[in-house]
């Protein structure tokens, strides 16, 4: 059994969590294994993480407030998939955990890369680029007016 490098797994887990739940559901539609083949080791559960900030952005840590997070773990065949996603959308967490389990299977990975990860990455990049270009359009040049001119 190939074990994916932590880096690759961290990247896809992050992408699955950052994805729009509806887009993830659509991408996973034909890939989600039948219920009989999946064992939910930990059904979706919503809880809290305390968000940490840093004093002045760079200093010692402080507690800013909490954020809701939904986590779950699933076993598909020999592989165990985990998910932690922000918010309380259980379905999002379930899909992400299933995708994580399937992606660990070298045989299925190329298909998931093409059918799930790449479209999600593209969509995320698009959304961010659009927001960024809109913000960039409101970039301002302030001129200091010299008195008496």
């Amino acid at each position: 059994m190939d074990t994916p490098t932590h880096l690759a797994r961290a990247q896809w887990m992050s992408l699955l969590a950052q994805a729009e739940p509806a887009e993830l559901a659509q991408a996973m539609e034909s890939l989600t294994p039948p219920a009989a083949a999946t064992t939910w080791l930990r059904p979706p559960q919503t809880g809290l993480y305390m968000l940490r900030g840093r004093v002045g952005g760079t200093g010692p840590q402080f507690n800013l407030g909490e954020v809701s997070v939904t986590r779950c773990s699933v076993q598909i065949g020999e592989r165990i998939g985990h998910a932690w996603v922000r918010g309380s959308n259980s379905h999002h967490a379930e899909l992400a955990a299933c995708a994580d389990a399937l992606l660990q299977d070298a045989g299925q990975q190329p298909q998931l890369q093409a059918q799930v990860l790449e479209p999600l990455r593209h969509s995320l990049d698009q959304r961010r680029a659009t927001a960024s270009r809109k913000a960039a359009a409101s970039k301002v040049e302030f001129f200091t007016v010299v008195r008496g001119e």
Partner: protein
Amino acid sequence: MYVAVKGGEQAITRSLQLLAEARRGDLATPELTLDQIRQQLRLGVARVMQEGSLYDEELAAMAIRQAAGDMLEAIFLLRAYRTTLPRFGYTQPLDTNAMRVHRRVSGTFKDVPGGQVLGPTYDYTQRLLEFESTAPVEPIEATEPLPDAMPRVLDLLDAEALIERIDAGGDPEPIDLTREPLMFPADRATRLQNLARGDEGFLLGMAYSTQRGYAESHPFAGEIRMGEVDVLICPEELGFTIEIGSITLTECQMINQFHGGNGLPPQFTRGYGLCMGEGERKAMSMALVDRTLRCDELGEPSYAPAQNQEFVLSHSDNVEASGFVQHLKLPHYVDFQAELSLLRTLSAQHAHRAKDEEAATQETSS
């Protein structure tokens, strides 16, 4: 002191029915959906999340609807709900330097690398009521997006080392006020957690007082930025760090004139504000109060209310404040009866004494 009272169940049930009816209003008008609240009242949602101390737009929208727009009630609802959820852990420190910026302005440096970006702000609106609601124009998109990460203005432009630098200093585990009581003196990290949960109106008033002369404050808004920041956690099950999504944050770096003292050279010192969602007024107020509360550390004379951490931190929480003020509505019948009886005695004594004095005066004059 208030006492338990019996009875009134029926009246309470009917009061709840009246409340539900008043909240819903005319049934012919459609009920607000959570999406409408999330999208069209997003600044209210941000405030409820920040002071409710829980980032979840859906739950905050639900709380606002249930509270009929009473923000403090909505904050209370969210605080109460969070106690039912298990705590999974702590996130990695949020990296605001890597923020995907939607707005970033500086009141101190005109030309900041990356530029000043106005973003969606009310600052340049004319505050004229719009009687007709019009569909917004699709915003123009620049051809180039902003740089991936915008370095913080103050870190970047401090070539002369005249602006205080703050390092992690061994990165101690901060006190968590949701787990431990507030003790005095509170360190800066603890104070910031308290201020982050604190009432915006209270902090705004405190911040305003420092500007009006009730503290040593000569602030400039070094940088205000708002945008998306990734949330990272490192679960034990994995042993490596993953992103679990992103959140909107507003960060304010105030810089204040400082003539030196307590072994520190003259420099600009910093006040820091950070809050969930778009909350510029809150972040700026927080930064001003944070800086003011550093008076002991910086050896500044301390005389103003905003410099007194016990005063500020003990009264910043609107759930606590609202509870204590409003508890006066509860039955204080026994207390009041006791006071009433005392007052009757005093009043009788007073009348008696007056009568005696009057009699004495008449005797002397006759």
